[in-house]
């Protein structure tokens, strides 16, 4: 006995919906990869910056193996900073991200703060090369403040999310 046509039509519709819904609900794979890569790079920068900070607290900082390579990492990553936030890579992508919609609402301010952070990162790398401990300490604080200047308005508060992943 052949199935009634409307049953076939109904089943086909449900099948299409069930296949399509995950695509509709989830972010495009490109966005997801982009956000993941952005988080990885920012984490790399955070890790490199922390390594410098830890070194600065020691009596005999290791310039060659710790400070210089990490200062380089911070600078090289920071130079791409502003390319990591294309339109659509905010929370509207459906991917878990700390990035706030304000980034794309106030692009001029965001860019200005991003460029300021790049300048501080470049300066950090330059001072690291000069091996001036006091100057590097001051510059690490300046860079930290540049990070905070963007995190405070454009990153959702740390305690609001379960974790950094």
């Amino acid at each position, binding site marked *: 006995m052949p199935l009634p046509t409307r049953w076939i039509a109904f089943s086909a519709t449900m099948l299409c919906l069930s296949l399509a819904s995950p695509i509709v609900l989830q972010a495009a794979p490109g966005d997801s990869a982009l956000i993941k890569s952005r988080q990885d790079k920012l*984490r790399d920068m955070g*890790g490199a910056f*922390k390594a410098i900070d830890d070194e600065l607290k020691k009596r005999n900082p290791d310039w060659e193996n710790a400070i210089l390579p990490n200062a380089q990492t911070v600078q090289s990553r920071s130079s791409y900073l502003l390319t990591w936030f294309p339109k659509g890579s905010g929370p509207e992508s459906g991917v878990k991200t700390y990035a706030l919609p304000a980034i794309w609402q106030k692009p001029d301010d965001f860019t200005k703060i991003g460029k300021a952070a790049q300048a501080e990162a470049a300066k950090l790398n330059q001072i690291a090369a000069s091996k001036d401990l006091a100057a590097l300490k001051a510059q690490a604080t300046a860079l930290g403040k540049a*990070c905070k200047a963007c*995190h405070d308005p454009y990153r959702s508060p*740390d*305690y609001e999310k379960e974790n950094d992943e």
Partner: protein
Amino acid sequence: MSAHEKNNKTRRWLVWDAPTRVMHWLLVVFVGVCWWSGINNELEYHLYSGYAVLWVVLLRLYWGVVGSSTARFANFVRGPKAILDYARSLHRRRSPHTHGHNPLGAISVLLMLGTVLAVVGIGLFAVDVDGLYSGPLSGFVSFRQGRHLAHLHYTMFNVLLAVIGLHVLAVIFYYAYKGHDLVFPMITGRRKGEMEPIDALQTAPAWRLAVGALIAAAIVWAITKVFYYW
């Protein structure tokens, strides 16, 4: 009613010594500053208020061993039987005052101090995402571990808020249901009601407090500074 009993009902008995009261309210203030500065990402103040909390808790632990009688753990921390017996009498509206912490309150004290210590302890290793004001011991963990600990720090603080909420609810319960005012004695040190002479507060000398304050300060200082220079 004998003159002695009458006297017993109207007198205000000294139950908490000044150091215990001051430490209690300092903890309220410092935890409040920690909360505010944490929420607003004012981490420089957060570090200092966190150290202040640690100092108070360490001093309170010390005072719990060598301080005045009602502050000593040995005098108020009780076994399971005493706790259960007390819990069974909790529904009675007219129950005698305990001169100091009752057996259930003792659990609350340990829970409070333990939770505060856990929040501070985790915070010492937490990493600030801006790299400005990470915990003083964050050099011992990786960036990733330190970030995980920062989030654990927030979770533990929410546990602390629950413990604080329970504490405040208990104080309201004692006031509304049993007619025992616990707030006034924590401010003035004195409470109304009857008291057994054997329970009278034995105050510890001030020099002992000074020694404890110095020891606690030395420990906090060591945690924040010294460990990097070994």
